[in-house]
């Protein structure tokens, strides 16, 4: 009887049963049956998926080697227990899978950690303090979490200060945002041709960019705080109050905060407060919209909140006039006061503020926008702001910049060491050049004149070799015909084949990229990326060349397929020729290289 590592109640295919993890197998027995109906050997497990944290059902999916559908298990215990059980399974299985992975590909570094499992997987070279579990391949050393993280860091490009989990998340985001890259990733990494680390090698900037984009502090959302009631049956309305909403309301309407601090717990409970607020005139005034007038009849008088009610801000002049002085270039009031008003009044459509109901709304927009702006830029009195901002001088506002001569600026003096020596060296060089090219103008002129002497006679004597002329003409005709040919032929390569060709091409390119990257590591290595050791690079080179050497075969296969489709095989061949050539170039380079250092 094998030892059982853990057990849990779980259903599979909607049948209740018991899930067990023994030291060799994962097995599931349907309730009421004796023999387990599902039995997965450790070596077969290839990847693990879990339902999201907080999802209604606690699920676990195990994919098998060569079978992506795998098995789905739903933990049927009460949620809290189920999650704990699932975590246990997850932890164990992850370790197993990682071992499988490293066994299956001697060169590969750990690949995609299973979704949601933030435990990094890795092979480890150091001994471990953990009790070694019986292993299918006893020659291997047991993994160690602690070291695995470190070794993983060294191999995959990691952003400093980031844990692998978030890094993984970043990668996923990059792949999702970039479908073509995602496709390549599926083709190469998921299918196991190259490892995750190799794939990202040289693409660190994408992850960095993503991290930077995420790291950017997001300002407040611009939308107005407008809790829209949801209608519930029975004519009642419901407003969901979240801490965020409360915060926003306090922020937007300080008067509510005042009311809250003055009343809650002394006169009203929290719940009562909000309930009455949403029914009060105050709330309706705050909504400041035309439709609030329609809601007037549902509004109740409320002795507490009505105290805080203010007069509608719908006069021509704002209720709270602001004294601050604005910059003269936008000062509209100055124009208004520039001269005594005369003349006939404006017609009804041009008199501002006649739609009284819209005025509080308009003022609210302006205030809201200003508040958002101040929350981002900080609240500085305008006068001080203007002093601080040097860009706001009056000339810059009237200047037409394209009328300035761009070359007329003084420029910035280049600070250079040993300037004198540099220029001296240049000068002496120039002198030498000068001596070489010193020519006598008269002589040159005479020579030129002699060469055109009797040009007309020479022209009549000019004979073109018939054969060569014909050949040239033929070649040109051929060229034109070819081009016409290409244009007149429509693209009749079947979709499937075309896609295969594309994927063959992109895959080969990726291999080549990896190969050359390993051969000539980029000089300006990013600071954050750990540099691979020469051994690692040699190993990678060897692996890549293995793939690359298969490229011609693949192309041949495609050519064969093309023949089956009845398409001119030549065209496929020509299309893929550059790839083949590039592969051959790499192969030649590989063959001619210095004998590789002995690998371990």
């Amino acid at each position, binding site marked *: 009887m094998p030892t059982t590592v853990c057990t849990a109640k779980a259903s599979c295919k909607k049948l209740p049963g018991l899930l067990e993890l023994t030291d060799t197998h994962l097995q599931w027995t349907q309730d009421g049956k004796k023999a387990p109906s599902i039995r997965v050997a450790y070596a077969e497990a290839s990847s693990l998926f879990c339902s999201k944290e907080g999802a209604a059902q606690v699920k676990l999916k195990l994919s098998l080697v060569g079978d992506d559908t795998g098995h789905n298990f739903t933990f049927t215990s009460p949620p809290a227990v189920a999650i704990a059980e699932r975590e246990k399974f997850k932890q164990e299985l992850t370790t197993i899978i990682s071992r499988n992975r490293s066994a299956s590909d001697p060169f590969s570094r750990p690949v995609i950690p299973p979704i949601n499992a933030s435990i990094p997987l890795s092979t480890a070279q150091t001994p471990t303090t953990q009790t070694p579990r019986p292993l299918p391949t006893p020659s291997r050393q047991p993994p160690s979490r602690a070291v695995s993280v470190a070794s993983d860091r060294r191999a995959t490009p990691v952003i400093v200060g980031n844990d692998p989990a978030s890094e993984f998340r970043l990668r996923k985001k990059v792949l999702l945002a970039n479908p073509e890259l995602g496709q390549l990733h599926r083709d190469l990494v998921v299918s196991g041709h190259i490892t995750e680390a190799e794939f990202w090698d040289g693409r660190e900037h994408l992850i960095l960019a993503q991290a930077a984009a995420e790291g950017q502090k997001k*300002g407040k*959302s*611009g*939308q*107005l705080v*407008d809790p829209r009631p949801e209608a519930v049956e029975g004519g009642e309305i419901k407003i969901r109050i979240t801490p965020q909403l409360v915060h926003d309301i306090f922020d937007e309407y300080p008067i509510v905060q005042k009311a809250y601090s003055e009343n809650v717990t002394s006169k009203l409970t929290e719940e009562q407060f909000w309930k009455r607020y949403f029914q009060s005139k105050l709330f309706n005034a705050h909504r400041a*919209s*035309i*439709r609030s007038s329609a809601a007037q009849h549902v509004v109740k008088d409320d002795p507490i909140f009505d105290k805080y009610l203010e007069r509608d801000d719908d006069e*021509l*002049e*704002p209720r709270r006039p602001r004294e601050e002085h*604005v910059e*003269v*270039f*936008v*000062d*509209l*009031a*100055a*124009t*208004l006061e*520039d*001269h*005594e008003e*005369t*003349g*006939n*009044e*404006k*017609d*009804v*459509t*041009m*008199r*501002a*503020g*006649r*739609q009284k109901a*819209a*005025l509080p*709304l*308009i003022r609210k*927009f*302006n205030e809201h*926008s*200003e508040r*958002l*702006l101040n929350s*981002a830029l900080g609240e500085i009195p305008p006068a001080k702001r203007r002093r601080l901002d040097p860009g706001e001088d*009056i*000339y810059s*506002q*009237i200047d*037409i910049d*394209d*009328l*300035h*001569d761009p070359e*007329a600026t003084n420029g910035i003096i280049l600070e250079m060491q040993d300037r004198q020596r540099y220029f001296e060296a240049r000068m002496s060089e120039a002198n030498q050049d000068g001596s070489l090219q010193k020519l006598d103008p008269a002589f040159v002129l005479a020579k030129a004149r002699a060469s055109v002497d009797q040009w007309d006679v020479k022209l009549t004597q000019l004979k073109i070799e018939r054969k060569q002329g014909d050949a040239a003409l033929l070649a040109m005709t051929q060229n034109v015909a070819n081009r016409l040919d290409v244009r007149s032929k429509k693209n009749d390569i079947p979709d499937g084949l075309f896609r295969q060709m594309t994927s063959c091409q992109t895959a080969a390119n990726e291999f080549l990229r990896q190969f050359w990257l390993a051969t000539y590591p980029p000089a300006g290595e990013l600071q954050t990326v750990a540099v691979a050791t020469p051994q690692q690079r040699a190993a990678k080179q060897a692996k890549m060349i293995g793939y690359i050497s298969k490229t011609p075969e693949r192309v041949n296969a495609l050519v064969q397929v093309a023949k089956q489709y009845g398409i001119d095989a030549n065209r496929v061949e020509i299309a893929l020729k550059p790839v083949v050539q590039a592969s051959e170039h790499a192969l030649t380079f590989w063959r001619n290289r210095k004998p590789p250092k002995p690998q371990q």
Partner: protein
Amino acid sequence: MKFFIDNLPIIFPYDRIYPEQYAYMCDLKRTLDATGHCVLEMPSGTGKTVSLLSLIVSYQQFFPTKRKLIYCSRTVPEIEKALAELKRLMEYRTKSAETEEQKTKETNFMGLGLTSRKNLCINPQVAKEKKGKVVDARCRDLTNSSVCQKGRENPGSVELCDWHENLGKLEPGHLIPGGIWTLADVLQYGRDKGICPYFAVRRMMPFIDVIIYSFHYLLDPKVAEQVSKEMSKDAIVVFDEAHNIGSLLPDNVCIESLSIDLTRPMLEAAGRSVTKLSDKIEEVKTTDVAKLQDEYARLVEGLQESISDENDTDAVMGNPGMNIDSSTMKAEHFVAFLKRFVEYIKTRMRVLHVVAETPLSFLQHLKDITYIERRPLRFCAERLQSLIRTLELNRLDEFASLQKVASFATLVATYEKGFLLILEPFETDNATVPNPVFHFTCLDPSLAIKPVFERFSSVVITSGTISPLDMYPKMLQFTPVVQETYPMTLTRNAFLPLVITRGSDQVAISSRFEVRNDPAVVRNFGSILIEYSKIVPDGIVAFFPSYLYMESIVAAWNDMGILNEVWKHKLIFVETPDANETSIALENYRRACDNGRGAVLLSVARGKVSEGIDFDHNYGRAVIMFGVPYQYTESRILKARLEYLRDAYRIRESEFLGFDAMRNAAQCVGRVLRGKTDWGLMIFADKRFARADKRAKLPRWINQYITETASNLSTDMAITLSKLFMRTISQNPNENQTGVSLWTLEDIEKAQAKQKELALDAEKDHDDDYGDGGLSDAALMDFDLDV
């Protein structure tokens, strides 16, 4: 750079010049040489003001006659901008002056800006007042001559303004040192030296080379009389941003300055003032009867004087001089006269139907009922002024209504033709509560500007949008020497005008009255705003045809959740009725654009924001014109003016309205450009913009860039085109603009040489024209050039 037009050396404060600027300056010079008037339309954002100032200052500094420049603009921001432009020009001229002597000449060149007391007052007691009228009145109380005299004779007896007193201690003509002073500079100088900026500018006016102020100071007879009387006749007058003086709305200073409205509350106030006056007279009679007798004596003398030189005084800006009718010379007679007049108008206002009549019939009716003659009425405003001075009244703002009634009386008795009186008992057609307004309305814009054309030898009328050019001379009754519109030369299309005629759902959009409140139209307008707020960086400005429409559509958009979508991408600022509030919103709008958050500004064509505020560069990457900014044609005043226009100048109503609307639309969209590397989208959202006859009324420089495909788009198509445009325009321009849309000094010289050649050829053509019908040399040369 420095170059010559004919033999006039021009200093231009940049290294390069646009070809249109050069052409503009040439035409301007032609006008000045001929001492005539001109109308010039120059594309927005191509540096009109700087070209204008550069040429005129060069002209002033080169010729010994030293003609003065009177530069009029519409708004205080524009005045300040022009002053800054002038200041920079002078700094450049000083810097590039070749001799010491020249340098001194440049530094002594003086330019000032004038605005109201409200904007220039630094006496904290007075400046704190909110209303300009109150500031004026309180200032007069502290600075008028009788108070000053009393205060100086007996220090401490009356309150005086220290800043004004300090000014009096300075040597006249040297109140401010030479140079260019912006309004802000003058204020600061006043604070530093403890002198009054307003009076410093007023008293320096005879000594300066350039004065910059608003149209009113030259066109409004009441103001012009005070501030612009001493301007010499050879001065150069410039009306910049002058597109409105061809308008028929209250935004036209020409008609505004001669129109007056009277309401019932005003008449009530005027009645109270009359009572106050008679009380005061009684009081003075008992305390200081000599004062009134003195006034009477002066008036009798004045009468004799004025009879002798009546024609002379009359000529000045069409303003009645100091000749007061004998029947109102006695103070108590005049007060009785005023009382009767106010009562008469009050009675007229009780009528509950609309009345329209000419000034002549009004005067006849007035005479029949009250025995008031035309002559005393004509000098009513003057007489009131004299009485107020005699009685040494304080707080004149309290007499504002009475003064208004007096100027009404003066105007109605002065002009016979080109005016109409309209009494409207109700504010709108469906109103039931009477709120009567008595309009005295000027129908003819040429009346106010006529004295200016008669008095000054060179008047320049210029703007970015002044099409059709020939309408202005016709309406304003003058003959221009030069009349020109300039196309915009661009090496790449810096702006993209698009006409959206329907929404993505193919429903036609329009601000036409019948459909403007249709939910489908409102939603389609809204989705244009949403889509553009998604794709356009930084600032978007949207204009509506009227306040009424903007306010209702903003409310509707909010209810439809459209603004919620916009909030996701940009902040929203809206023009409000209050000017200061709007200014703060504008400043915040600009901050949001600078910061990168981006914002939308909703405002009104012909509104406060559309005049004088620029939305260049990031402040306006797109401007959306929601609907055609037609005038409200139901207005009785507008109807009367249109009728007058048709009868007097044969300008068709619909034609005029079309031009006016398109001019305003162009004015709004033109605000987004400054310079040729600036770029912006111009969205015209109304199906009526698609009509070729409508588009033809746009200024040439906009119309030339509207393609046939871009003239009838749905929202989604427009968005696609806009995206494409923004992608291309954001690239670094590869082509070198120099030589095509940007000239260096060599390019100018080349152009001049070519012009000279052409002129010579033309002369030669006259000489050796063989008359054989063959190709001329010039034609052959042209042919050659084309190859």
